[in-house]
C-alpha cells in the first residue's frame, strides 16, 4: 500500500525522524491558513499524489507569502499532474502540503528496502540527493553506501555512524544523522514498511538533518496488524475498477488492452496475458480469481471485466486442480444468467473434471467458444476480436 508524502512525514514525526514543519490542505483557503500558522517568509507548496517526479512536472512551488501560497494552491488543486510515473493521463491533485522553507546546505539520499537476494533489509545512502537511486546505481554504483541489517541484532548505531561518515557529515551533523537513521529504521520495522525513501535528505545550514521528501510503502500482508496505516489509504489515487474489485476480494489490475481475462492463479494469469499478446491481442486486465472460483467470484469477475469499456472479448482460463472444472463451469453458467455478457467469450477449462465441464457448457444456452489448450484459447480470442 502507498501513502502520500504528508502522511509518511506524519509517521516520521511520530518516530522522531526529523521533518520540516508543515500541514496538509484540501482547499486554497486551508493552504493560506496553514502558511499563516507556520509563519516565516518562505513556503513550499507540494502537490500530494501517489507518484514521483512532481518537482519537474510543476507540482512543487516556492511561495513568499500566505497569499501566494493560496494562489499556488488554487492552481494546483484540481490540476492533472503528469510526471514520468503517472502515465500520460496524469493524476488529479486533491491535496497539497504546505511547508516551511528550508535553508539547504547539502542534498543526500537515504532509503530502506528489502534485498531479496540476501533476505535482509538494506539501508542505502548516497551523496547524489535528488537523483533517482536506480540511476545512481546504474551510473555510479560506488557512490552508494549500503548497510545490511542482521535480523538477530537489527540496525546498530555503528552502522548509522558508518553511513553518516560515509556521506561526509561532520560534528553535530553526524549526531543528528545517526538519530535520524535509527529512528527511520524503527519507523520502518514498527509499521511493516516495504520501502522508505528520502530523496532528498537534506542537511540545513544550521546542521540539522531533515527529510525534505518522504516516501513510504507498506507490506500488504502485514496491514492486518496496522489499522492506523490502513486508515491512510487514499482510494481516490487508485483505479476505480480496482477499488471495486478489491471490495469483492478479487485480485484485479486494469491494463490498456481489449481482451478481458479471468484466470485462477497469479502465475497462470500473467502467462495468459502474455499469450494473448503473443497471439496478437492486448490484455485488458490481470484477474486472479484464486482457488475458489465459485458462482459469486465468477459473477463479480464478469462485472468488473465488463465495466471496462475497452473490453471487446473475454478469455476464461481455469486450470482445475483441487478446484473441479465442472464446478467452475456451473459457476460460469449461473453467473452468465445474471450478468449481460455482451462480448464474445472463449472458455478453456483444463485439469480436474474438464470433460464434465465441457459437457455442462455445451448443454447451456450460453454463447462462447471452447478451447482445449492455452494456445488455442489465445488464438480463438484474438480471432473473435478480429471478426
Amino acid at each position: 500500500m502507498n501513502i502520500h508524502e504528508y502522511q509518511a512525514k506524519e509517521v516520521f514525526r511520530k518516530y522522531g525522524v526529523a521533518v520540516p514543519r508543515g500541514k496538509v490542505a484540501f482547499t486554497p483557503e486551508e493552504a493560506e491558513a496553514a502558511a499563516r500558522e507556520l509563519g516565516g517568509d518562505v513556503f513550499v507548496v507540494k502537490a500530494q499524489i501517489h507518484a514521483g517526479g512532481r518537482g519537474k512536472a510543476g507540482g512543487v512551488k516556492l511561495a513568499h507569502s500566505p497569499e501566494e501560497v493560496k494562489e499556488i494552491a488554487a492552481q494546483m488543486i484540481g490540476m492533472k499532474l503528469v510526471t514520468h510515473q503517472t502515465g500520460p493521463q496524469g493524476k488529479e491533485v486533491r491535496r497539497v502540503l504546505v511547508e516551511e522553507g528550508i535553508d539547504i546546505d547539502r542534498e543526500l539520499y537515504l532509503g530502506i528496502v528489502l534485498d531479496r537476494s540476501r533476505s535482509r533489509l538494506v539501508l542505502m545512502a548516497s551523496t547524489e540527493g535528488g537523483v533517482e537511486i536506480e540511476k545512481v546505481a546504474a551510473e555510479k554504483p560506488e557512490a552508494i553506501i549500503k548497510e545490511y541489517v542482521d535480523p538477530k541484532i537489527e540496525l546498530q548505531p555503528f552502522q548509522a555512524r558508518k553511513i553518516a561518515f560515509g556521506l561526509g557529515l561532520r560534528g553535530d551533523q553526524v549526531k543528528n544523522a545517526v538519530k535520524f537513521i535509527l529512528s527511520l529504521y524503527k519507523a520502518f520495522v514498527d509499521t511493516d514498511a516495504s520501502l522508505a525513501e528520502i530523496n532528498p535528505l537534506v542537511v540545513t545550514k544550521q546542521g540539522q538533518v531533515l527529510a525534505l521528501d518522504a516516501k513510504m510503502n507498506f507490506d500488504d500482508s502485514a496491514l492486518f496488524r496496522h489499522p492506523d496505516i490502513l486508515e491512510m489509504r487514499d482510494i481516490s489515487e487508485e483505479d476505480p475498477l480496482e477499488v471495486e474489485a478489491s471490495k469483492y476480494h478479487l485480485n484485479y489490475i486494469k491494463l490498456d488492452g481489449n481482451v478481458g481475462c479471468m484466470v485462477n492463479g497469479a502465475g497462470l494469469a500473467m502467462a495468459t496475458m502474455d499469450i494473448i499478446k503473443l497471439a496478437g491481442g492486448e490484455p485488458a486486465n490481470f484477474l486472479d480469481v484464486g482457488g475458489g472460483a465459485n458462482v459469486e467470484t465468477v459473477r463479480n469477475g464478469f462485472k468488473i471485466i465488463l465495466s471496462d469499456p475497452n473490453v471487446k472479448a473475454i478469455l476464461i482460463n481455469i486450470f482445475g486442480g483441487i478446484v473441479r472444472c465442472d464446478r467452475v463451469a456451473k459457476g460460469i453458467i449461473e453467473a452468465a444468467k445474471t450478468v449481460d455478457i455482451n462480448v464474445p467469450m472463449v472458455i478453456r477449462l483444463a485439469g480436474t473434471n474438464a470433460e464434465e465441464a465441457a459437457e455442462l457448457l455445451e448443454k447451456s444456452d450460453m454463447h462462447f467458444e471452447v478451447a482445449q489448450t492455452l494456445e488455442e484459447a489465445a488464438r480463438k480470442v484474438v480471432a473473435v476480436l478480429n471478426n
Partner: protein
Amino acid sequence: MSIIIDKTSRVLVQGITGKEGSFHTQQMMEYGTNVVAGVTPGKGGQKFMDQVPVYNTVQEAVQETGANVSVVFVPPAFAPDAIYEAADAGIETVVCISEGIPALDMLKVYDYLQTTHTRLIGPNCPGIISPGKCKVGIMPGFIHREGTVGVISRSGTLTYEAVDQITREGLGQSTCIGIGGDPIIGTRFIDALKLFKDDPETELVVLIGEIGGTAEEEAAAWIKENFNKPVVAFIAGQTAPPGRRMGHAGAIISGGKGTAAEKMKALEAAGIHVCKSPADIGKTVAGILKKA
C-alpha cells in the same frame, strides 16, 4: 530417484484439523503419501480420519512417529511460529503452503533457519511432489507422471499447466517443487538446481519464473557455471506493467528492475531454452529429450 521427498518420507501436517489442512491431508493420503501425524495445539489425542494421530506439539509428534517432513496449513499470522516449531523439533523439510506472511516475519524465519538443518519450501507455494512416490502439498496428483523432468516454479496453477503439457507429451517428472511467490522464500532456484544436479534420474529441468527480484538472473549465472543438464525456462509477466504487484507478493517490477525481458535475456545468455509462450513448455522439453 527424486529429490527432497520420496516413499520413505514420514509426513506431519501442521494445522491438520483446519478446513484446508484436513481436506489436503485426505488428498495426500489418497495419493499415497505416508501421513504419520498431525499437530493442532489443544487437539492432541484425537485421530484424524480414525487413522492419523493428532498431537499438541511438533516435538511430541516427532518423538512418537518419527516424522521428518512437515507441511504447514496454518493462517499466515501463525505460520512463522509453526515453522519455528517444526525446525526446533528437528524436522528436515518444512513445506509452508500459507499465503500472506508478512515479509519482516519471513526475514527472521529465514535467518533462524540458517542456524538449523531444516529446509523450508515456500511459503505461498503449492508444495512438492515426487510423482508415484510422495505428494506434500495441494497440487492435483493425477496430472503428474513418474519420469525424468525436474520442475522448479514460483507459481501454482502455471506449474500445473507446465506439468500437464509435459505429461501429455508422454513424459514424466522426477520431482516438482513450487518454491513460492513471496519475496522471501526458503528454497530458491539455485538450491533446487543443486539437488537436481546430483539426482541421476533427472535428465532435464524446467524453470518457471516470473517478474520481480533477480532470482532467475542468479539461477542463470549459476547454471552457466555449474549445471550440465538441459534447462527449459518460461518467465511469466512479459506484459506486466511496472510498479504493480501481480497477485504474488514477490511479482513486482520495481525501479525498472525485475522485468521478464531482463530475465529472459540472462537465461538465454546462459544457454537455456527460453520459451516465449507458456504453451511451448511441453513441446520444448519433448523436443530436447526425444532428440537425445
